[in-house]
């Protein structure tokens, strides 16, 4: 059994850990509020962008000559996966969830005998993936120095992806990120951005004819690269809100666990202190009796 002194030290150390996790929880809560706000404020832009593209792609006359970013290269041999994680740890299952989702997808792709290329955004994802998929990672981007998520960073990633696409380095691009649902739930997402999945196309049957200036193709060519950056930006905003949310709940749990541990250790400490006192008393009494 640990000595009284050891127990005392343990209690002190657990208590100070608890203080740190508590502080981290507070910080995460404050940051979460900001991240959540900016994620919500960023939504109209990406939604509008999506709408315009849907309208455009619906109205495009010549499907065969549609821009490659929209229709794809016609192959699906090389898959590019952009795995977006955080730069910092201590945020519960946040990074692990994305990695798990991504790894499942990787396995599926290799099973089908297709080539895999990976870009990691955020250093944590890179750390976890490089052990197994080290030779597949073609680029690692980290925005550790940026204080908060901004469009400029997203644009850099977007431009990189487009540059690689134009060089025909891949056929299909998928991004992995965590969608922020609420503080305790983040849903890992896999979203295909090239070629663009024009979902719910059927919805807008009431096709209104637009006037285009200049023509559709040129607008689409101008718009699609922007849309990639916008989607990346959206993913980054969702990710940063999710990260703070995950960190907050993880730190809340840690604080609670530390509290339980302190309670348990305190009981043990008191018990062994009592045992020591009893032992001394018995020694004194039996010493007195023997006289």
């Amino acid at each position, binding site marked *: 059994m640990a000595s009284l002194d050891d127990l005392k030290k343990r209690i002190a150390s657990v208590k100070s850990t608890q203080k740190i996790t508590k502080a981290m929880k507070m910080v995460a809560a404050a940051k979460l509020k900001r991240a959540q706000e*900016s994620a919500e*404020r*960023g939504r*109209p*832009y*990406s939604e*509008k*962008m999506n*709408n*315009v593209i849907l*309208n*455009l792609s619906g109205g495009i006359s010549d499907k065969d000559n549609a821009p490659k970013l929209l229709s794809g290269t016609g192959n699906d041999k090389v898959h590019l996966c952009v795995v977006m994680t955080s730069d910092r740890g201590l945020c519960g299952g946040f990074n692990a969830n994305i990695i798990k989702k991504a790894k499942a997808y990787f396995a599926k792709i290799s099973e089908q005998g297709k080539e895999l290329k990976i870009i990691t955004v955020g250093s944590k994802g890179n750390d976890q993936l490089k052990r197994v998929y080290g030779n597949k990672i073609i680029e690692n981007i980290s925005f550790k120095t940026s204080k908060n998520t*901004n*469009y400029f960073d*997203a*644009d850099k990633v977007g431009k990189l992806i487009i540059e690689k696409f134009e060089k025909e380095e891949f056929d299909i691009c998928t991004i992995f990120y965590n969608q922020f649902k609420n503080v305790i739930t983040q849903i890992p997402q896999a979203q295909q951005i090239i070629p663009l999945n024009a979902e719910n196309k059927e919805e807008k049957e009431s096709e*209104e*004819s*637009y*006037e*285009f*200036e*200049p023509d559709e193709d040129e*607008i689409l060519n*101008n*718009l699609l690269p*922007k849309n990639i950056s*916008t989607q990346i*930006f959206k993913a980054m905003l969702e990710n940063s809100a999710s990260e703070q949310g995950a960190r907050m709940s993880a730190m809340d749990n840690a604080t609670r666990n530390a509290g339980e541990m302190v309670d348990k250790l305190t009981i043990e400490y008191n018990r062994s202190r009592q045992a020591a006192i009893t032992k001394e008393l018995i020694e004194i009494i039996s010493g007195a009796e023997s006289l």
Partner: protein
Amino acid sequence: MSEEFKVEIVNPEKSFLSKEDVTEVIVPAFEGEMGILKDHISIISFLKPGIITIHSKSGEEKFFVEDGIVEFKNNNLSVLTSSIFNLKDVDKNKIQDLLKISEEEANKSEISDQAKFLANQKIDVLRSIN
């Protein structure tokens, strides 16, 4: 019949401006300035660097944009842009900075004609508001 329509300007970070009582908007569309009034036909176009002028009941407002997309539909005008600021709020120094950056860009030799055209356009606009 009212002659007003709705305009909304959004950038990636937030909804920049939303107004209900707009009578006319002039946007620097890619192929020349374009005035939009109520009941304009649905249109999608993109912007070159220039000034967006919004006429509304409460007066006139001017914004500088570097790029973007305009969509007009059902008397709703949406402007999507990544860089915009109100001419009223901006200080001279920022304009000077932007001017310098775009001048440098225009003087680069390896850029495409279109990029050069856009950079020159930006310089002209910035000079005019300076």
